[in-house]
């Protein structure tokens, strides 16, 4: 957590006090609304976009991801987001799954600020991962707001399943 906070502090040029204030404000207006408002600011939007692109490139290079896609399926009142990644190398495929599981566990068991709010607000029910052939499927079951969040974050065409 301290690593993440330090990075955030250096990126935003913020001190602990201002971060605490930001967290308090985010709690008051909700994560989704805060993110939506911040994404309207070109500085923040460009920074998020650049970071996501950087992360995408790093993951593609590290795990040899040939292709990826994100879809979603409505399941009653819930939504299942499905990310499909093609990783040709079986060892890298396994490593990807293991590291993803560790990351998810660390985030949700780490007692970080805003994580309980995130789970509650986006009604996150479960996160799972499975392998089929040379593909890895990552499923996130949550509320409909989750899809909106992904779209806002620049994930294109989330919802191909809905196409008639």
């Amino acid at each position, binding site marked *: 957590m301290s690593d993440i906070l330090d990075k955030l502090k250096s990126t935003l040029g913020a001190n602990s006090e201002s971060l605490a204030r930001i967290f308090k404000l985010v709690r008051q207006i909700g994560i989704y609304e805060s993110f939506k408002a911040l994404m309207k600011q070109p500085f923040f939007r460009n920074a998020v976009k650049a970071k996501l692109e950087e992360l995408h490139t790093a993951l593609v290079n590290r795990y040899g991801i040939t*292709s990826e896609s994100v879809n979603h*399926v409505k399941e009653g009142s819930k939504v299942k987001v499905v990310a499909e990644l093609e990783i040709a190398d079986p060892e890298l495929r396994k490593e990807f799954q293991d590291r993803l599981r560790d990351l998810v566990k660390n985030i949700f*068991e780490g007692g970080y600020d805003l994580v309980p709010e995130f*789970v*509650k607000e986006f009604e996150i029910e479960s996160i799972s*991962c499975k392998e089929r052939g040379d*593909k*890895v499927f990552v499923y996130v079951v949550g509320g409909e707001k989750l899809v909106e969040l992904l779209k806002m974050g620049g994930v*294109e*065409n989330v919802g191909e399943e809905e196409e008639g």
Partner: protein
Amino acid sequence: MAPLFKRSEEEGNIEEMEEEFEFEDIEVKVKFRPGPNHGWRVAKDVEPPLELVEDLFFGNEEVSKAAEDELRSWIADEFGGGYWKIELTRAGKTLRSKTIHIDDVDIIYGVNKWIVYVKGEESGKWYKADVEFAHPPSTAEIIDQIGGGGRVRVVGYDEKGRIMSSKTMNINVPTPDWVLEREDSFEKRMREALKKQVEKQQEKLISAIAGEGGQQTSGIDRVIAKLEELVEEKRLEGIQKIIDALERREGRDEKKSLSETLFIDPYKAKVRSITLLIEKLAEKGDIETARLLLNEIPDGSSALISLMTAGANLANAVASMLAGAGSTNKVRDKLDRMVEERIQKKKEREKEKGKEEKEGLVDKEKSEEKEMAEREGGAWSERETKEGGEGEEEKTVEQERRILVEESESEEGWDIKLGVEE
């Protein structure tokens, strides 16, 4: 509906029931749809193993779950992904049904051909690749056949040309050259269209300046000819008229408003400067530069917008100031009145009553003062208390909230279930 089969708990065997002889009348129907927005279609050629169907509907929870997994795997291998509904019907009536959704395998049932589209990065347009597949293409096949990757959409069509499946993905290799070429030609077309628009605007402007009643000309040569004509014969008569008119107005009304000094005068000065430059250039024979410079003459809209914005801001500031001052005065007046009333009241009572009674009155007034203070500040203090209370409550909730993580592992992968403990 009574069960058709009953599994004996002791023996674990299927015990025949009274209705068992009717089982022959029961039909197993399989229906398919590629997505939730499609209608169900009967898949007559899909005949699942009957023992699995039996376990699915009549087995206990564990047996039923195992049968569902086996059926899922069988359908996925044989017929691909999508929504599969298994129904038990008798005389056209559905007795039981179960839907299995397979989302980790490509939809192939009912699909006749797969067509690939590639997205142009600049235009955002989808370009159809000149290739068709008779099976869902793999990433390697797509790269090989279309000559690259990028943002790719694979659409499956049925024999009637209806979309059965659509999957958009990022293929992490460069976009094919043919897409880039088409993007270039698209951009070129866009540039040409834009150029035409600019030309049209210039023509309009020149016609308006020449005072020809908006007569339209076509082609850049005619535009230049018109401009030359304008410079030679009319000597920017139209613009000069505008400047003259503006100058006349200036002379007539010497007392300038703030807005005129801030916005109108700079606008006039800009028009004058550009006009003089155009004249000079035209005299030197540099028609092309003069023509370009004509575009720089502001149409007055920017000055108007600045003026309106400044006006709106000023109005807002004044409104806020007045509202603030008004409310302050109101409160002050109210307080003054209350104080005066209290002093008056006190004096009257002092006259009427003796010293002892006066002391009693002081106590009473103290309580009155307190009451009044409470009345005045009540709303705020109440709000503060409430906010403070909420804040504390929020803090407590925050502290108490904890994520419950339940992890499970299988051969295929892992599953983490989450919950928030309050």
